């Protein structure tokens, strides 16, 4: 059994911006045992999953994959990529597999074994489970999944834990391309497979998942090195000017999480309540004390997004102080003109009033003050592009014709940046954010092996 394992995390979201190479090359000299990177995020909004498209240019994704592939093949160590192409749909996995094949030919690499783990779920299978009375609980206060939710959804992925990845490693895979996966799992899987304690293994994943975001000063896309032993985890910043400090590592534990003490994944959770952080050396922080708590049942998280409608945008500016004092009346006028033509339902119309509360909307404490100018982005969403265009055009034009009794500027109540409306990409929505009970933690996932 190995006494320690070294894993490099070169980027927190593969392809979102190209990874930086200096710190990566420094890391390669440390003789790592694995290089792992996740490409996923649900920060990017529901559109990439709903429309099954990528959030980042393929060129950047190829850039990162090329450097990781060449380095791991040269060192003869495995590479693990999670959540292929932002969302981890089957299309994303296939895209990455084709990129890997192309790169192998381009660089004339010796033969290696590639595993791809698919995690996209068929709507029919989920609907069947609901029909059979299986409850799929909601996360973050959402009610249990309904047939209606599934019907509103275009694409669903299940988020894998360590189990299918460990299976692929045991089968001898050199390169593993995963569909949607928990960022923690792609780092924890090799550590658990090599026999390290689960609590430490999952914490290793937790701290490495965003690469240099656990270091300071703030730098994106720089590599960090994680070292796990049977007693502790050490995490070291590889960039010459960066350090992993107690402050930077511990504050990363709470990044993008409602609760910094627990991290949930398939088969249990990580309890970080009793974690101890110490400055090991100038660039390295040592962590002890994370505890793995197994769950009684296996649940797999499901993510789903669906199209709401076609979308157009209009842009209008207002400078007249009297009009600004009566801004809500202006917007009400424009909305009523839309209602008169299209009725109350079957579409969405939103006014984003930049300069007042365009950024924070309902949460803005200063939404009642009168600014000296505002920019209004009109957003119209409807089942067809024609209808969305007409709704947005009607609302934008009627801001110009708003009827206010004492207005002095009788030649128009707004300024147009452009006198047209712009076609936006369709609007999508996160329709599924739930956890599905499964008999085994590998059930929703399918592994294929290829010789490249």
């Amino acid at each position: 059994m190995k006494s320690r394992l070294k894993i490099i995390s070169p980027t927190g979201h593969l392809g979102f911006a190209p990874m930086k190479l200096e710190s990566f090359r420094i890391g390669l000299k440390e003789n790592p045992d694995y290089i792992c990177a996740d490409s996923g995020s649900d920060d990017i909004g529901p559109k990439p999953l709903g429309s099954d498209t990528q959030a980042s240019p393929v060129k950047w994704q190829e850039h990162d994959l090329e450097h990781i592939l060449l380095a791991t093949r040269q060192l003869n160590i495995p590479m693990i990529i999670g959540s292929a192409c932002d969302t981890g749909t089957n299309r994303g996995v296939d895209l990455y597999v084709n990129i890997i094949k192309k790169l192998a030919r381009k660089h004339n690499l010796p033969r290696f074994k590639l595993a791809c783990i698919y995690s996209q779920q068929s709507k029919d299978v989920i609907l069947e489970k609901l029909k059979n009375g299986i409850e799929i609980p909601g996360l973050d206060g959402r009610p249990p999944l309904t047939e209606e939710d599934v019907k509103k959804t275009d694409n669903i992925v299940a988020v894998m834990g360590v189990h299918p990845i460990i299976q692929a490693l045991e089968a001898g895979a050199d390169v593993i391309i995963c569909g949607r996966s928990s960022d923690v799992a792609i780092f924890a899987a090799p550590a658990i497979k090599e026999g390290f304690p689960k609590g430490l293994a999952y914490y290793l994943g937790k701290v490495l998942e965003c690469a240099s975001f656990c270091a300071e000063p703030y730098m994106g896309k720089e590599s960090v090195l994680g070292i796990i032993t049977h007693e502790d985890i050490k995490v070291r910043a590889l960039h010459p000017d960066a350090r992993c400090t107690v402050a930077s590592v511990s504050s990363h534990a709470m990044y993008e999480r409602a609760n910094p003490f627990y991290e949930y994944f398939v088969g249990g959770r990580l309890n970080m309540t009793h974690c101890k952080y110490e400055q090991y050396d100038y660039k390295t922080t040592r962590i002890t004390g994370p505890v793995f708590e197994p769950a009684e049942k296996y649940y797999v998280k499901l993510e789903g997004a669906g199209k709401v409608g076609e979308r157009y945008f209009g842009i209008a500016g207002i400078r007249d102080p009297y009009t600004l004092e009566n801004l809500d009346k202006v917007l009400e006028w424009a909305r009523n003109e839309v209602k008169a033509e299209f009725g109350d339902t079957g579409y969405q119309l939103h006014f984003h009033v930049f300069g007042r509360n365009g950024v924070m909307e309902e949460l803005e404490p200063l939404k009642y003050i009168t600014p000296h100018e505002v920019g209004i982005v009109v957003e119209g969403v409807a089942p067809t592009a024609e209808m969305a265009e007409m709704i947005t055009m009607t609302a934008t034009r009627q801001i110009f014709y708003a009827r206010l009794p004492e207005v002095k500027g009788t030649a128009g109540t707004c300024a147009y940046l452009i006198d047209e409306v712009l076609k936006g990409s369709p609007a999508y929505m996160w329709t599924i954010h739930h956890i599905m009970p499964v008999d085994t933690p590998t059930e929703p996932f399918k592994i294929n092996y290829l010789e490249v």
Partner: protein
Amino acid sequence: MNNMRTRRKEMRLVELAKTIRSKNAGPDRITFDIIFQDKEHYELVKKSQVINKQQIAKLFGIDESRITDLVEFDPANAIKFTIARRHPSGSPGESDTFGSQQYPPLYNIKVPIQ
């Protein structure tokens, strides 16, 4: 900070914190982190109890039930809280897909320093 204590009775949170930020925590939540440079600043704000559910709800004009978590995280000298979004991130009508610009009202929270 000691010099200021003699002259002023309270300070704004922005003067005391090293980091104040907001970000999505999944599609339905926005989480806020207030991180302090050292234990002294952290303990001062923690003991003052000015960051509480009632105050946060009042500041953002929302019902207290929408504040899902409020935790003090000693290892990072941080106080963090989380609120439920009105609609999931990126839905039509939503204005901050990443939830990354919702923190500025926290700057002006008054912290007693005596």
